[in-house]
């Protein structure tokens, strides 16, 4: 027992728990207790008495499950062919899915409507030859657009895991007489399963919390995020019973899924002794063309919004009406010359937030996976709590908690950075944990037995092995942080607009051309660090050559 108290890991986990309690649990409890304490009947009995709310919960579960399955079915095969084979156009395919992460969802939804809406290009073309598509408003549109946005999370999470998978295992299985396909299934799947599950979990929670697309495409189909927002608007701040209850439901759903995820991962532990990834095999001829075509098609579909941003950024506009075919630099001039503050703010806040999240999640996920103690299960659960919070709930909770009092943060840049870190740190935590499950304990045991103290062992032995995964997590954190909207739009103050806030404002005002220009710069802000990391520092962000 005294041994535990002397261990630095014990104190680090205690510190992590204290920070998480203050910045995650405490604000959340502030909001959640309201579901019981509000005026009139408590929120839970009103929830059960309202068919619309129950239907919203059911619809959200169906939607999230379907989107998760479809996104996984797109993302895993794409990751597999990119990691293991080389074919025409691959370098493009490996990089481009990232872009879809940062395209504002509102623009994505708008582009889908241009293609498949009531008056969409594809809808009209098909109608001319006698095929009537179901209305894009509702299930069809929600599932299609969300799957083609969120598969990228699966792709990025899984491609790193497959890249690290030791091909010798597969060869060993084959030399023992197992067929190639079977050996892949038996040997590779268990090893990459934690990564698949972690990304699927992410997709599930993103779908449950999705607000922008749901608002535009669901129309009368009740969804949890939309009814929560409507309850919030209808109730205001004096009585927050119903919004808190509905927010609690989404928290409970995600916690349940997280628990399931942990249970599956804990059942089988597989460690890769030596991460010697397989060399990508060239695919030629018909097979190569087919793979390139299929992968290219997926990427092309998800890139349609980007194309509309690029065209929009250079197109003249009069008010909301685009003058297609008339080109201009005026929109970009606004971004860099007339109103550059959003760009500066985004770079500063997201940079600081990414640094903090990555440092926190690397150390804490190490403690959780490799040095479990009495605190670590709590640290693990609480660090995942933000996954279950929609940005709106988090924003309201932070404002209510850190306004005035002993820690007055509202009206400062700190609260924006805080919102960023809380929202995005779980990504780094999930990634870090998935990676650490694959790093054998024997490595650091060897180091410690040779007399290196535990903390130095972490920095000298474990951290270098984790580095590719940390780099990948940093990229994911940076991209999603720069693009974060729903929490920051609640907590920002005058003069502290970020790029996504500016894009959102402009779209809401119908100014598509300016919005596209800011959107294009946002995409560039995300891609440039990735390209620099890959080319200059040889950080293999996607673990796939």
């Amino acid at each position, binding site marked *: 027992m005294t041994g535990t108290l002397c261990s630095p890991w014990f104190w680090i986990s205690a510190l992590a728990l204290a920070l998480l309690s203050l910045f995650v649990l405490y604000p959340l409890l502030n909001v959640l207790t309201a579901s019981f304490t509000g005026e009139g009947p408590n929120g839970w009995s009103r929830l059960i008495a309202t068919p619309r709310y129950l239907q919203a919960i059911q619809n959200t579960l169906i939607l999230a499950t379907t989107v998760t399955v479809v996104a996984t079915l797109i993302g895993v095969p794409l990751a597999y062919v990119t990691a293991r084979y080389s074919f025409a156009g691959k370098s493009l395919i490996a990089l481009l899915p990232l872009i879809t992460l940062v395209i504002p969802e509102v623009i994505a939804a708008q582009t889908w409507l241009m293609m498949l809406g009531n008056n969409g290009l594809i809808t009209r073309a098909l109608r001319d030859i006698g095929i009537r598509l179901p209305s894009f408003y509702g299930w069809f549109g929600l599932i299609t657009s969300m799957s083609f946005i969120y598969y990228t999370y699966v792709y990025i999470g899984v491609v790193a895991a497959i890249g690290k998978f030791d091909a010798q295992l597969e060869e060993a299985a084959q030399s023992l007489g197992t067929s190639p396909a079977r050996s892949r299934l038996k040997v590779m799947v268990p090893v990459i399963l934690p990564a698949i599950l972690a990304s699927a979990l992410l997709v599930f929670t993103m779908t449950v919390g999705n607000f922008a697309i749901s*608002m*535009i495409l669901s129309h009368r189909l009740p969804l949890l995020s939309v009814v929560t927002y409507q309850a919030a608007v*209808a109730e205001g*701040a004096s009585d927050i019973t119903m919004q808190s209850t509905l927010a609690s439901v989404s928290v409970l759903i995600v916690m349940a899924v997280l628990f399931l995820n942990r249970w599956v991962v804990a059942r089988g532990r597989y460690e890769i002794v030596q991460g010697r990834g397989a060399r990508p095999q060239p695919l030629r001829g018909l097979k190569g063309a087919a793979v390139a075509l299929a992968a290219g098609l997926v990427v092309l579909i998800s890139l349609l919004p980007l194309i509309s941003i690029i065209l929009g950024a250079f197109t003249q506009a009069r008010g909301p009406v685009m003058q297609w075919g008339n080109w201009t630099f005026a929109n970009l001039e606004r971004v860099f010359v007339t109103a550059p503050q959003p760009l500066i703010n985004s770079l500063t806040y997201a940079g600081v937030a990414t640094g903090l999240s990555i440092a926190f999640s690397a150390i804490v996920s190490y403690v959780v996976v490799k040095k479990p103690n009495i605190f670590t299960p709590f640290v693990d659960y609480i660090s995942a709590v933000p996954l279950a919070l929609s940005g709106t709930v988090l924003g309201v909770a932070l404002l209510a908690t850190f306004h005035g009092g002993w820690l007055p943060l509202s009206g400062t840049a700190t609260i924006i950075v805080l919102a960023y870190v809380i929202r995005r740190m779980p990504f780094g935590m999930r990634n870090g944990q998935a990676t650490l499950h694959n790093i054998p304990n024997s490595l650091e045991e060897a180091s410690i037995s040779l007399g290196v103290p535990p903390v130095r062992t972490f920095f000298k032995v474990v951290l270098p092995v984790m580095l590719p995964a940390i780099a990948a997590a940093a990229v994911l954190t940076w991209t999603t942080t720069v693009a974060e909207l729903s929490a920051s739009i609640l907590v920002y103050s*005058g003069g502290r607009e970020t790029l996504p806030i500016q894009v959102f404002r402009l779209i809401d005002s119908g100014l598509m051309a300016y919005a596209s220009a800011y959107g294009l710069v946002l995409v560039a802000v995300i891609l440039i660090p990735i390209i620099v990391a890959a080319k200059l520092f040889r950080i293999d962000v996607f673990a796939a050559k």
Partner: protein
Amino acid sequence: MNIKPIHIVAALTLGLAAPALAQEPVLYTSNPVQAYEAVQANVKAETGLNLDVITGGSGVLLRRIEAETSAPQGDVFWSSSTNTLGAFEQLFEAYASPTLEAMPDDLRYPGDLFLPANVHVATMLVNTDQLDGQEVPVNWADLADPAWSGRIILPDPVNSSTGYTIVWGLSKLLDEATYKAVVANLVISGSSSAVPRGVAMGEYAVGLTFETNSYSYVDGGQTELRIVYPAEGTFISPEYAGLIKDAPAGENAKKAIDTLLSKETQIELLKVAFRRPSRTDINVSDHVGLPDIGNIKVFAVDEAEAAEQRDAALAAWAELPKAGDAK
């Protein structure tokens, strides 16, 4: 033990937190970029002050003001109609701006707690390319024809004051059977700005929205769009600005309001954002292609009653079948 790490984190991050200069006024608004940029430019020109702007839905912003009552961050709120503001009166303080002299009495809020900044007029935005053989509707009652089912879009009255103003007005103007038939043809949009955009894109044939939103697409050059002021009379709704209680900018907040309501700013707002002025000394048709208010038939509704009966009206509205309902 508990305090120390927090201080470290706070110290690390507070370096970013240069506080805004106290004397610069901050505007909370749900108005579009064109509109608040025009106000920012005029405030700068008239007073030399930089007007900072926070945007968001009016409900969200009002809740934010409420959350900030112990230490207000905003000075001026400019966004909402009576039916939304009524519940938030305690967050504001009355200000008898000298500009009120130019405002008609029927637009003024009791006690001048809020100041009328502009007037909204409900319109039908019609896309003539999407009529499919139907005539352009001229009356609200024309929309009862089942041929319009699923082709008319309206912002959700639950969270849009545009939507609520129109639904409340229609329920008073039309007889019950016609009203129900119109509602049965409607598709509800969760997002207000998606309504005119949806019609402009050809997603819907008719959009029910305020003229400021409709006209920007006509002004942009989309000649297939038509703005209809229904012949039975349409609904108007003043949009208010208010001085937030204990505004940190003090006198400068009042200067910002005076500038917002000045003749120059109102004309500018009309030109760039098509906001119909609340002042009586501006002829709308001198500046943009919109009719003067005297040439529009208005169906008077009791805004106070609409605000009072909001919950009941919305509950009744929720029960009516609509075209966009999930099966």
